[in-house]
């Protein structure tokens, strides 16, 4: 859908408490244009719970239920049941960070998926606990500095899409804010499908990733161009890649060097300064290469 056809209605209002250059803000605006007014958000503890602004004001033009860190998917099951009792078909959406999704809330998310709650779970993934001051999460990539991985994380992130796939959801997708049309389309598609849906939006974070705040969208696009992040959809268990990721998969374009992505972020600076850490840069590249090798075999 061309940008001019996207809704003019702003359901995430200007003047919020988000950091300047916040990737989540972009994700929210695009997703809410696809979702529309008849939507209820459930938000666990995460950046978004701060972005809403303080009582008695909110920056959201739709109902938002804030809930404890581990509880958002279960709360969504309850909201869905309550709405169903009243014959309402309002979209129930969880909007959660990667900490709530990958870590503390994964049990309740798995439960809601298993009982086939009709809702859309959106994880805006900034690859760390940004809200609490940049700590390591299950989504933090190998090598990244955080305030709980001072020398760089020693492990890779877990594969949340594979976890979602293990629940046989009718619709799973990844997106990133640098491709707004793609993100909008995927949210719209999810909206049209009954049952549990999962969308994960890579959402760069200037203070956490340590880059200039004007480069949030650039970072997002670079994540795709380098193959660090892939745009994909999973329907009926079939994985399809789209956009630039599809071109990379099919060998139509060569991905940019992963090092371009790493070197643009202060959180990976220790891999380059004071001395180039060849071993870990190489390991990071291998992780990405292996991922694309699997993708070419039709796997995650």
């Amino acid at each position, binding site marked *: 859908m061309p940008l001019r056809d996207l809704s003019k209605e702003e359901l995430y209002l200007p003047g919020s408490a988000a950091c300047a250059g916040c990737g989540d803000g972009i994700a929210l605006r695009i997703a809410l244009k696809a979702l529309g007014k008849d939507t209820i958000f459930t938000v666990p503890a995460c950046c978004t719970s701060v972005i809403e602004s303080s009582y008695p004001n909110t920056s959201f033009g739709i109902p938002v239920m804030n809930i404890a860190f581990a509880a958002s998917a279960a709360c969504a099951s309850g909201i869905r049941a*309550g709405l169903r009792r009243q014959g309402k078909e309002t979209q129930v959406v969880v909007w959660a960070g990667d900490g709530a999704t990958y870590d503390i809330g994964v049990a309740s998310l798995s439960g809601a998926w298993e009982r086939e709650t009709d809702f859309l779970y959106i994880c805006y993934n900034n690859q760390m606990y940004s809200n609490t001051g940049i700590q390591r999460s299950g989504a933090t990539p190998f090598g990244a500095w955080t305030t709980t991985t001072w020398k760089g994380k020693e492990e890779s992130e877990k594969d949340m899409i594979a976890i979602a796939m293990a629940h046989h959801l009718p619709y799973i997708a990844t997106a990133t804010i640098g491709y707004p049309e793609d993100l909008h389309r995927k949210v719209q598609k999810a909206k049209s499908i009954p049952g549990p849906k999962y969308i994960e939006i890579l959402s760069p974070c200037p203070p956490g990733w340590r880059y200039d705040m004007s480069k949030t969208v650039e970072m997002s696009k670079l994540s795709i161009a380098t193959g660090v992040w892939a745009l994909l959809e999973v329907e009926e268990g079939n994985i399809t890649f789209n956009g630039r990721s599809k071109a990379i998969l099919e060998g139509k374009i060569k991905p940019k060097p992963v090092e371009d992505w790493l070197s643009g972020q202060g959180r990976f600076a220790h891999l380059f300064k004071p001395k180039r850490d060849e071993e870990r840069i190489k390991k990071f590249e291998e992780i990405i290469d292996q991922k694309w090798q699997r993708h070419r075999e039709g796997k995650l």
Partner: protein
Amino acid sequence: MKLIMDTANHIAGEAAKAARAEVVAAYPITPQTTVVEYIQKLISNGEFDADFICVESEHSAMAATIGASATGVRTFTATSSHGLLYMHEMLHWAALARLPIVMVNINRTIGPGWNIWADHQDSMAQRDTGWLQFHCGSNQEVFDTVIQSYKIAEAEEIQLPIMVNFDAFILSHTSMPVSIPDQPVIDKFLPKRKPVWKLDSSDPLTHGNIIPPDPYLEIRKSMQESQDKARDLIRTTAEEWKKLTGFWHGGTVEEYRAEDADLVVLAMGTLGSEAKVAVDRLRKERIKAGVFRIRSFRPFPIDEIKKLSEETKLVVVDKALSFGGEGVLYSEVKSALYGRKNEIFGWIAGLGGKDVSWQDLVQMVKAVKDGKAKPVNWQKGGKGAITGFI
């Protein structure tokens, strides 16, 4: 009105049905399981029109209940022991969100070691969550209290969740006769919930975002005011229920032969019921004893307790302990009577399901009467009833 003979757990399910709860979310734990099974059966048979959410934990049970309640419908859940502890975070959330959820908690102790029997350690640990907490002494009271709880919780000036407690096995798995009023009588007593706030896409509001200290304190104060107002409402609601059904359980406190008593036993749940038997025996021996069975632990019936004469000696029997402090009920009673002359004695008894019989309670009262009791005493002895105390 129909008379049925059934366990308190099944009766709790009947009460949820009679109250026309619309969404039930629960996770099984012994000894609560038969509540969940029974409700599922009623729903499967088409006897109970509700949506049941089978959650993967108690934390999620309360989260789902909160979500459903926030849309404006009536909700029910049930748990016990470790399940209640696992819910703890969400209990606070439900109360601060002012959601009139009614939950049955089957009082069971805490591990390790694993022990499935009754004491009050689980619910006492939720004392400060903002929930109203009632304790029942019979299966009829479980039914009546669940119905009344919805009325109280949903009152405009209250809007707080209520935990209806009863003892594991002693009630949960024990059959007793229970009269269930006809549905139109219950519907008249308990009309459809009118939510004070709700999630509705025609009225966008954000619930629970960041709140600065000043209004936060005001909101906490309003919760305390609602708890205070509930004291009267608990009594008037019980009176209204009595007019409709003939059943009376005493509002915040059930007093039994306490008016002229020199010694009053204060206890909660089934222990308060057993104490009536002890008092009858003591009266036969010309010992003027009475019972204050505390029905409402939150709000605590401070004024009712203050009505006791300063000469009355109090025998407080706790099935829970605040380690490093003292019996929880004992502390509460002492606090209520601050500045007064009453002598107050406490017993820690019945932990982990250790039986406390009327014979035990008779011994406690006699120990106080004979000046042999210490301020704080522990139940002693071997197997079950009739154990030594001093």
